[in-house]
């Protein structure tokens, strides 16, 4: 078990290093965006003095290196700074209430919503895709296999908003089973939330199933020529059991990796679906913040996205290591 622990610690350290490098990239990239917040908020009639005052107030007049380390130091303490857009510039007219919304306060509910949507989608999509992949491998080259392949490919090839509208048409307009708007808010019961989230989750399921299903199928079929599968067949084991018990455990590593990639996508890349269903997730907040150059929010979102990617890939790595009996049970 020691060697596994060592590998995991190594991966963790590497993950942290990656996150650090990513933070530099994020900071640099965000600061290279043309225009700045002061100009964006004051508009065309801004006087140079007013721009300067706001810049100073927000600390934008300091050098980029200083700002980076201030931001990083804050982020390490869990303080992601204050949102520019929510800041109260009333102080310029002598009426500063002193209340500013922190980025964390602003992001937290949105992030929770995004995780909820991702969680519901994963709960539907992962079992669905893996089962479909196993069945496709079992009945490979049959009509079922082809239909499964073609339909998942079709759904992944169509734009997300299109799939969303198709689902709205069929499940909300023609057969009003589910609500077409997913405007969830605090104080809703879990059931209500789930009902409102179901349609975007189904849309996303259609988007992510193809990868996972095809990888499951391919990873299993890849193993079917191996001697231990032949052995299982020659022991008179039923085809379904051959695949689930003999092929699947050895095919887990690539499947886990593809699942992790798709889960990361569910957290970071679902802005279009959020917009279509008016779902208050982090993606919308992110896009809005970019529009008005709300740098602290943009940076925080980027950092969360990066962390999600790294964490999920790390988890996939660790799980695929654990799926290998050679590492779990050394000689």
């Amino acid at each position, binding site marked *: 078990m020691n060697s596994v622990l060592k590998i995991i610690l190594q991966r963790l350290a590497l993950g942290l290093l990656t996150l650090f490098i990513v933070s530099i990239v994020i900071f640099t990239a965000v600061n290279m965006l043309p225009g700045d917040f002061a100009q964006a908020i004051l508009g065309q009639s801004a006087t140079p003095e007013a721009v300067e005052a706001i810049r100073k107030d927000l600390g934008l007049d300091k050098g980029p290196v200083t700002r980076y380390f201030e931001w990083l130091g804050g982020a390490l303490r869990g303080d992601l700074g204050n949102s520019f857009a929510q800041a109260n510039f009333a102080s310029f007219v002598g009426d500063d209430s002193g209340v500013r919304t922190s980025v964390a306060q602003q992001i937290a509910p949105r992030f929770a919503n995004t995780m909820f949507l991702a969680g519901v989608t994963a709960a539907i999509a992962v079992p669905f895709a893996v089962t479909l992949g196993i069945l496709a491998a079992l009945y490979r080259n049959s009509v079922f296999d082809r239909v499964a392949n073609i339909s998942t490919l079709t759904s992944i090839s169509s734009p997300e908003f299109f799939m969303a509208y198709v689902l709205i048409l069929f499940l909300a307009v023609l057969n009003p089973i589910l609500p077409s708007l997913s405007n969830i808010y605090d104080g809703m019961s879990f059931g209500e939330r789930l009902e409102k989230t179901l349609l975007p989750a189904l849309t996303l399921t259609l988007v992510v199933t193809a990868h996972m299903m095809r990888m499951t199928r391919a990873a299993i079929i890849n193993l079917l020529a191996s001697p*231990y599968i032949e*052995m299982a067949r020659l*022991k008179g084991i039923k085809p379904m059991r051959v695949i689930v018990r003999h092929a699947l455990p050895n095919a887990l590593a690539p499947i886990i990796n593809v699942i992790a990639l798709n889960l990361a996508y569910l957290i970071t890349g679902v802005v279009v679906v959020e917009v279509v269903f008016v779902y208050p997730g982090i993606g919308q907040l992110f896009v809005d913040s970019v529009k008005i150059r709300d740098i602290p929010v943009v940076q925080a979102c980027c950092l969360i996205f990066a962390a999600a990617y790294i964490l999920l890939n790390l988890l996939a790595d660790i799980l695929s290591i654990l799926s290998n009996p050679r590492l779990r*049970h050394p000689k």
Partner: protein
Amino acid sequence: MSDTGELLVEMRGIHMEGRSDETWNPIIKGVDLTLNKGEVLGLIGESGAGKSTLGLAAMGFTRDGVRISQGSVMFDGIDLLAASADQKRALLGKRIAYVAQSAAASFNPAHKLIDQHSEAPVQHGVMSRTESEQDGMELYRKLRLPNPEQIGFRYPHQVSGGQLQRAMTAMAMSCRPDLIIFDEPTTALDVTTQIEVLASIRDIVEQFGTAAIYITHDLAVVAQMADRIKVLLKGDEVEEAETREMLSNPQQDYTKSLWAVREFQRPQKPAVLTDATPVISVQGVTAAYGKVDVLHDVSFDIHEGRTVAVVGESGSGKSTTARCITGLLPPRLGQIELDGQVLPLDYRKRNKDQLRQVQMIYQMADTALNPRTRIGDIIGRPVQFYGGLTGKDKRKRVEELLDQIELPAAQYFDRLPSELSGGQKQRIGIARALAAEPKFIICDEVTSALDQLVAEGILRLLARLQDDLKLSYMFITHDLATVRSIADEVVVMKDGVVVEQGPKTDMFKPPHHAYTDLLLSSVPEMDPDWLTNLLTERGVDNIGDAAVDKMT
């Protein structure tokens, strides 16, 4: 061996075809096979003779891309070719079992041995899980596996090759089948391990009166195991007879030629002068992979025009020594001399001339040749790199080399490796080594992937080239028959240490080092009573791993 005269398997006029490039080509061309209950039939032939294909067909099973085009397979009155998939599945594992060539590949790496053992009995409803596990331990004990109560709870990678092969035999026995197909069960094993597995298999097959089809390319092995032997050649039956009769009085020329293979023997060359400078001198080499030493103080010399055979089982450090000499693995201690000059330990620090003097021929010619490069280019590259020849001169030199390895240049120059047979590929490997015009060539198990007749051709070629070009060979092998035929001197290795070395004639005469003795006595002989005699003489605890363990 407990033949009851009652018919179990009857295959009539079997024709089988394999699919390649959109056409069906014949693999088996009309073979009949009958097997009585409790009888052991040996199926023998070269690779590609269709032994395994026929063996699997006796189970009503074909691999992907293979089909039975004609004929019938009756198992105990059941027509296996007409039976439905479900009917066949009910027989497989329960009444007909299979033991594969590589147990390491045929056990599922994700499950414990005992779980795989009890799977068939449980799925077929023969025994409950607990009963089957108990029975498995009993079988492990009968097959003399160490720690029979615990070994089943290990994963396949935690158990040695010979033990795995016995565990697989136990697994085949789990439902007490009427028939077991043994498909080259000992080919992948070392000689000392092989003998132990052979003894266990024979013992258990006899105890349960199981009928068996024993597939192998090794005559001496089949002589120990089978009541009857059937010889196959390229999908045709050559002949079939009782084991003793087949050995003493083979009828067909092909069968006779199989017997004759082991007769190629080169006389040992006279000893070299004591003050002669060896071509290669390995001096006190200790080498490690990571932090673990795998070679300990290895020393031996190889003289001009001589062949030194390095013998030992897998893991004994033979190939590691070769890697040290070529500089691929710089030794931790010690040095390598070429013609009395110390060679830099790392190949990257050697100059072109030092590099050219040491060449290598590999075991798997299949993987050692670039499949996308034509023969002319494969051999042409070292010609250009070391000889600096280009254009017409290069082509001429390549043609000379092809001539030397007895492949007509006009025919082979533009071919791809995939268009050659195994033996021809190995010849290309030899030509590539010769292209550098070296003094010294390392032959790493060059014949062990080849059939006996082809291997003999390669050995003869190497012997001729040695005489013509005054080459020195380091011949790595685990096959003592090869040693007997080609070596001048022998170095015996075990666990990274040289246990014994000397001229060939001395090595094959007693007294030996105990380990050499064990190696020599473990090589099966053509005598069908050899195994029985050896077991009576030495006892079951003095063969195989048990005997090796006693030595250390």
